[in-house]
């Protein structure tokens, strides 16, 4: 074990800070040698989760959010914390992907993407805060040589 390193950023929960949040995570993961595929998937998951917080956690323009990224030799873990309305994104029903164009609802895909791309997602509401944590293993690490290459 080489231990862990953590980086975090707290910003007002507005769309203009979205880039800083995802950029902090992707920059850190690249520095730590994660493959681009994994960086892309975490980028997307963090984007979706943060966009949900920005849109729904607070009254517009109010409140802050924190993104904390912890990297170890085996995985990256990102926790997103806000003090807005209690909301468990994991309680959202999976979207129905079988319909045609007409019946497909616009939206509802963000949480589905997070669940599909991450290895583990947890949610808790504690001390007045929503805490969503997403973990992605470092692909290409020895252990488990059977990967999902197509």
């Amino acid at each position: 074990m080489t231990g862990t390193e953590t980086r975090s950023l707290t910003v007002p929960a507005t769309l203009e800070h979205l880039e800083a949040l995802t950029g902090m995570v992707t920059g850190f993961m690249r520095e730590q040698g994660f493959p681009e595929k994994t960086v892309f998937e975490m980028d997307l998951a963090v984007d979706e989760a943060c966009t949900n917080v920005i849109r729904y956690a607070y009254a517009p323009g109010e409140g802050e959010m924190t993104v904390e990224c912890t990297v170890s030799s085996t995985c990256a873990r990102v926790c997103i914390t806000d003090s807005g309305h209690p909301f468990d994104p994991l309680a959202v029903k999976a979207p129905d992907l079988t319909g045609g164009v007409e019946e497909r609802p616009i939206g509802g895909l963000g949480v589905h993407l997070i669940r599909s791309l991450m290895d583990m997602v947890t949610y808790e509401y504690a001390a007045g805060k929503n805490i969503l944590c997403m973990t992605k293993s470092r692909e290409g690490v020895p252990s488990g040589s059977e990967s999902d290459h197509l």
Partner: protein
Amino acid sequence: MSTILQVVEERRGVVPVLFLKGRMDATTSPEAEAHINRLIDAGEHHLVVDLSGLEYISSAGLRVLLAGLKRLKQCGGTMKLSALGPEIRKVFDIAGFNRLFAIHGSLDEALGAGPAT
């Protein structure tokens, strides 16, 4: 890094082709949406959207493409997508969008295929 989305429109014959380059996220996707809506408002019913330069798409970007497809379907139109990179393709697959859109390997293929579903 940039969170810029570049929207470039070109005509190939009579077909309008939109090239979306960069990132389609919650911040940038409204620009693509406005462009697609302008074309549909102007009476274009068959669009080709080339994604060869698209580096990133979130559900906000997927939503914009689906909204455009829905509008086009209502007037008997089509939206064909071309040249999705592997990561973009994966997002489409997870979202089930591979079953909603006509997806072509290259722009030439999309242009040669005639109006699809």
